[in-house]
């Protein structure tokens, strides 16, 4: 996985690309989230549009990210979920836990 960070209109957007799986990507995601929180980010979007595969390890990282953000008084939302990512969150009943938006624009107008 590659993860890149950008700031836009008060949001920190993390663009993840590739696989968020054990041994290739789970750690990178954790570090990026931690970095965003340490930098004082209060509204974080994780853009999953270009994620091809996620496993339980990657799902665990998303859950940890959500918890870390909540603990630091930040909001975290997931945007651009490909069907396979949507499905795997769904079957472990995590779609109701996360704030999920179709795309960045929708997230921004809603979390404004």
């Amino acid at each position, binding site marked *: 996985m590659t993860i890149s960070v950008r700031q836009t209109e008060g949001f920190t957007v993390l663009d993840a690309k590739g696989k968020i*799986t*054990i*041994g290739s990507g789970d750690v990178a995601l954790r570090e990026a989230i931690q970095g965003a929180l340490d930098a004082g980010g209060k509204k974080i979007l994780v853009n999953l549009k270009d994620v091809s595969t996620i496993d*339980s*390890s990657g799902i665990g990282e998303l859950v940890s990210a959500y918890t870390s953000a909540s603990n630091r008084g930040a909001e975290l939302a997931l945007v651009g979920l490909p069907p396979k990512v949507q499905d*795997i969150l769904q079957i*472990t009943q995590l779609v109701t836990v996360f704030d999920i938006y179709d795309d960045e624009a929708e997230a921004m107008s809603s979390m404004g």
Partner: protein
Amino acid sequence: MSSPPQVHLSIGSSVENVELVQLVVEEALNRLDLDPDDAHWVGIAVREAVANAVKHGNRHDPGKRVALDFGVEDGELVIRVCDEGGGFDPEGVDNPLAPENVLKPSGRGIFYMKRFMDEIDYSFGPDGGTVVTMRKHLDSEHLDSASGPSEDQEKEQEEEKG
């Protein structure tokens, strides 16, 4: 006649090697001409099983091996993952859907394996070691395309060159 791939692979216990196993499994699944979505989910199930063997079974000890057997038996895809660890009680594993577990960062691997395969069995060696056997029913269609004529042709042509 070409037979469906029967592959045996063994690796040292590092998380990096999970990806290596995955490459082999994806290529072998390709041969079965499985529906790409099904192949994706089978791939995830294997990833979970191998990750558990590396992490929980062999506890990342690079000297301990994780073995994978991939094959087709009686119209079923059968994948076995073996480690050299101390085993565990599969019945005692927490349900990741229980409200108190939904926000835990771990504990979903076996649940996904069950969900993505038709059958999951655990067995444990007398001297330790865990074997998880995962099965998925294949349409006869998939079996047909796995045993197409292409290899016979190539074989004959190779022999001409001999």
